[in-house]
């Protein structure tokens, strides 16, 4: 196991190096000039040239890359071309909303999605199954922003129960923090609930049709024992894989959700930075997100051994 983890960590370094080169080149070769965004439309070419010089954008690409790579290795992610604030500080300011909504979404989708999946498999072919399957199809098909605006219209503008937008840090009180995250979590969580429910249902149905399940039933095992002790454990590996992958993909949904609900998280930071070509921020965020992605994959792989003792590394 230790050797496996070590091997994975070494390969992670290689992956991150590739990500770094790719991200840097992709950004620098894409059209767009941060100097023009800073100076505004009415700036003259002379002013733009002076700003580019000031920002070091006139240096050869290789020199810029070496500067950046060495800084990253030293733990310095650089500073925003616009605000001048360190990238790590800007990312840390944006982490809380993204982590908050991600954790709430994970809790909501796993608990609800797995429950729905088990329920649908247990009542396969019945009314409950059909309703849950229809819900899952709908949840998977409707875009996040449509769900978001629908929820805003219903609960914020219509009923005045919940705020339309914004984020309140957890240090300002658990209540306001939670209330501002209810609608974003619902909007972001819906497709994941649907996805997890569908996979859980399929996986459970497969296990429920196994001979040993029939044996358990013949021995008089209760529905609870059959579903949770025998079936769920054996259906767990694909479910875990899907959950892991879902949350690696969560970041794309977070971008839209943060925009619709005006949450100042990492997703919006990236979008704003992309629009303004704030290279240090985009590079910093992508490196960190890639790192998290790789880490989640590693954790998912390791968690298989807990669910299925037959798996060994």
């Amino acid at each position, binding site marked *: 196991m230790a050797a496996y983890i070590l091997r994975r960590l070494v390969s992670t370094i290689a992956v991150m190096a590739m990500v770094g080169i790719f991200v840097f080149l992709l950004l620098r070769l*894409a*059209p*767009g*000039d*941060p100097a*023009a*965004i*800073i*100076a*505004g*439309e*009415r*700036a*003259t*070419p002379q*002013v*733009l040239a*002076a*700003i580019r*010089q*000031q920002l070091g954008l006139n240096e050869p690409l290789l020199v810029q890359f070496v500067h950046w790579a060495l800084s990253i290795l030293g733990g310095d992610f650089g500073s*925003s071309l*616009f*605000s*001048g*604030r360190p990238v790590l500080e*800007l990312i840390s*300011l*944006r982490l809380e909303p993204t982590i908050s909504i991600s954790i709430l979404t994970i809790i909501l989708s796993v608990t609800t999605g797995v429950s729905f999946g088990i329920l649908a498999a247990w009542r396969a072919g019945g009314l409950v199954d059909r309703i849950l399957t229809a819900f899952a199809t709908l949840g998977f098909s409707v875009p996040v922003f449509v769900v978001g*605006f629908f929820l*805003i*219209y219903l609960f*914020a*503008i219509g*009923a*005045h*129960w*919940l*705020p*339309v*937008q*914004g*984020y309140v840090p957890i240090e300002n009180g658990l*209540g*306001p923090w939670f*209330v*501002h995250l209810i609608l974003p979590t619902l909007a972001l969580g819906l497709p994941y609930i649907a996805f997890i429910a569908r996979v859980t249902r399929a996986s459970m149905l497969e296990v429920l049709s196994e001979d040993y399940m029939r044996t358990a039933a013949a021995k008089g095992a209760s529905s609870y024992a059959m579903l949770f002790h025998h079936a769920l454990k054996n259906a767990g590996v694909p479910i875990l894989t899907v959950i892991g992958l879902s949350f690696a993909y969560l970041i794309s949904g977070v971008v839209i959700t943060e*925009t*619709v*609900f*005006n949450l*100042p998280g990492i997703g*919006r*930071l990236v*979008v*704003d930075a992309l*629009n*303004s*070509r704030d290279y240090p921020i985009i590079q910093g965020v992508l490196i960190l997100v890639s790192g998290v992605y790789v880490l989640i994959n590693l954790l998912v792989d390791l968690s298989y051994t807990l669910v299925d003792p037959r798996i060994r590394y």
Partner: protein
Amino acid sequence: MTISRRDLVKLGIAAGTAISIPSVLRAQTAPADARTVRMVLGDLSTFDPIVSTAYTSGNHGLAIYDTLFALDSKLRPQPQMVGKWGVSDDKKKYTFELREGLGWHDGTPVTAADCVASIRRWGQVPSGGTLIMERARDISAQDDKTFIISLKEPLGLLIETLASASTPLLFIMREKDANRPAAEQVTANIGSGPFKFNQALAKPGASFTYDRNEKYIPRQEPADGFAGGKVVNVDRVIWENISDQQTSFAALQSGEVDFVYDPPADLYPAIKSDPNLELQALNKAGDVYFMRMNCLQKPFDNVKARQAMLHLIDQEAVMRTVAPQEYISAVTSFFGNQTPYTNDENTGWYKKGGDPEKAKQLLNEAGYGGETVVILQHTGWASGNIIAQFLAATLRKIGMNVDLVPADSAKRSELLTNGSWSIFMTNESDYDRSTPVSNPTLSANGEAGWFGWPKSDEYEALRAKWANVETLEERQALAREMQRIQWDIVGTVLLGSALSPIARRKTLTGLIEMPALTAMWNMQKGA
């Protein structure tokens, strides 16, 4: 199915919880503090209002910095930080004395040296400042309160230039900030204006907080445009950066924000139908939309092809893609619709509905051979995006070979700079078209000038003369001459004019009505 007593108890608890949730939630979403105004003003990405010509940076500058002079509601310059000023008999030496009580947010007093450094920095960017620097023999502080501008020759436009509301405005910064090169941003955000930037509450990309500067001493005169007393009636203004327009509107409806800058026209009916909301045009003269053609490339290197565009455009049709009929108008004067220099010289090209036949004829005369016309489609600007599509269809109707190139702000800026385009659209406030000396969009100095690069030495000679003449009548006469040349060389084609009202809650009153920029003082927020 039987219902047990235990089930009933569970049901009761669940129902009670569900009923109580709305009140609990309402308590968490209580209306904002009545002494705090929340404004959606766009994305403030560049703090330094000298480096950037963006209106967002200008709004930020208006809040935290002060100006030597400012324009009143009739666009006349009035002293702001300056208490007394005078000019020598030969009109070559101006003396300015700062008024009492001016202080920086860090507690130190504003000095004449700060003003001198600020003027010098402002003079490095394209603005009226470059003209002053060209003409200045000496700009220096005489003592802590007094500074002079000595000129090589009289400059009739000096005070108007110092007061200009065209971005970048002459905001006065601390000497140590203003001593930085103009290409290097000042991010300290310490000014002497009516609001203090709250660094601790700054959330880049999300919101910025401006606290009332309790030590600010407003002028005694009532607020009048950007001039007069900058009296702050609220404790705090929060600049919200809500990037989604639909979300901004929903937040305005629910009372989470008080002000939304430039809502999209398709939301006007919904805003008008809400009894708590109001549309208000702060810029009464509106914005002028125009397109520039690349005079260095085919087909628009030929003046006949540019003239074809002038005749082709149906301004009403173009502007209807942007705003409802009641908010739009045609504009035929190069100097905008409502400036002191608006005139009708050489405007015979204008025909309601456009003149496609004349355009075709001119295009033939230009020898148009099917060259690709690249139109930049600004995907980050809703109005510009749709105008580009409309324009492409219009050009295709007269047989032009059009390629629409979608580009976000950053890509568009790069394409503009490297010249790989034929047409792009933009807009600016009507007022901006009254400042030919400081506004690069009104130049015709070829490759040394602004995107499109039209060239007319005759026009440039008149533009240079503009700064020297003393009276309004003389400048109006110059404006007629300049316009005559412009509608012959056609460096710019006007697309029309539109009002861009802001949306506000009716409880927010006292907004300053001025072109382009939004001032935060004078506002009042009722219950």
